[in-house]
């Protein structure tokens, strides 16, 4: 036995880091919040590209059938296992019969749950109540040491603090890389506005509302790119992972990858502002973001190794 999805909540998927070709009925179009996906894996000692369980808006409940090490990252959902409070960005071990139940979120929209040793499903990756998620149990020496350490206390007394992630998640300003053929007035209008997220078509698009943006359709069929900002009926629509392959809606620009983590955590009613930049600036920002992620993951590795050494002594 493995993990049982007791309650599938609103939308629960087994998701890969990058899009993968898959059989009909599966939706392996990549994790919306790639940072949270990788961070959860990093905490449990997996490689960052191991599949995770992506839960959106209202996560449900998961039952464990054997000792299992997990961590979840992304939105700040309150969670409980029996009387025990379970926190985001921490490492826990659950035992046979334990149940992890998610409650309300104080911030964000999506949570990613990683399981040490990896997970997979045999059927559709769209998980329903009662479905089983198979544990791959590809345990490394580090996983074995983690199991030994967690036998005593079931959790570690440290985690990644919310403040460490403020830089990535706590801002309502989003960069948009300009296109050379879009008039400057369009960018001025976009920047002057504050938009409200009207709703999300799950994993496909975020619909915003604010003052109208006047952008004339040019009769061009554009690709539907993740982060693409398209103007439909005068309002911006931002493409997410499952957006159409193409669209004839005018394309104003594309949000760089380093701002997509916080974008996919926006809920209906959230505020969004845009800052239009050139691709060169986006690349400089991306590199700074890349270095920050590397240092965060190194810090997790260091802390984990230190704990494991302390345990041995």
């Amino acid at each position, binding site marked *: 036995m493995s993990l049982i999805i007791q309650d599938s909540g609103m939308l629960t998927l087994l998701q890969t880091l990058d899009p993968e070709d898959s059989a009909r009925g599966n939706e392996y179009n990549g994790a919306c919040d790639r940072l949270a996906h990788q961070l959860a894996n990093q905490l449990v000692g997996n490689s960052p590209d191991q599949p995770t369980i992506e839960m959106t808006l209202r996560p449900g409940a998961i039952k464990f059938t054997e000792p299992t090490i997990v961590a979840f990252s992304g939105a700040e959902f309150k969670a409980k296992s029996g009387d025990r409070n379970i926190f985001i960005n921490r490492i826990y071990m659950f035992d046979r019969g334990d149940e992890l139940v998610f409650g309300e979120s104080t911030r964000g929209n999506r949570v990613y749950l990683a399981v040490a040793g990896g997970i997979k499903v045999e059927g559709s990756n769209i998980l329903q109540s009662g479905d089983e998620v198979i544990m791959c149990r590809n345990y490394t020496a580090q996983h074995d040491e983690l199991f030994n350490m967690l036998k005593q206390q079931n959790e570690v007394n440290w985690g990644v603090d919310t403040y460490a992630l403020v830089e990535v998640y706590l801002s309502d300003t989003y960069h948009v890389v300009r296109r050379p053929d879009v008039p400057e007035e369009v960018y001025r209008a976009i920047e002057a506005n504050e938009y409200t997220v009207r709703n999300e078509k799950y994993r496909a698009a975020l619909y915003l509302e604010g003052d109208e943006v006047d952008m004339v359709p040019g009769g061009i069929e554009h690709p539907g790119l993740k982060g693409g900002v398209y103007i439909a009926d005068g309002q911006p629509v931002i493409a997410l992972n499952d957006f159409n*392959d193409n669209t004839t809606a005018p394309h104003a620009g594309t949000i760089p990858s380093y701002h997509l983590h916080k974008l996919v955590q926006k809920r209906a009613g959230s505020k969004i502002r845009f800052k239009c930049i050139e691709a060169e600036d986006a690349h400089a920002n991306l590199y700074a973001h890349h270095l920050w992620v590397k240092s965060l993951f190194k810090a997790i590795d260091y802390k984990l190794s230190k704990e494991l050494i302390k345990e041995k002594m």
Partner: protein
Amino acid sequence: MIFANGDCYVTYQQPEPIDSTKRVELEQAFEEGDHVYLRDMVTTEHTLTFYYSPIRVMEERNTIEPGDIIIEEVGEFLTGMEFSI
């Protein structure tokens, strides 16, 4: 025109539709061809969009401006497919 479309894509766009036979040819040539940094290509009636990893280019070429390197690679692919750019 060819332009950086966000931080991970470069797009070639033309006002006239690309012939559907030409699109199939382009897709086949891209799939069968060897590329240095281009990972994937998606086509629409008027565009060809190429996906790449900017971090890989930055680290391998010791630059924080990978755009020109990718635009050059896209240009070479398109010229090879008899596009005038």
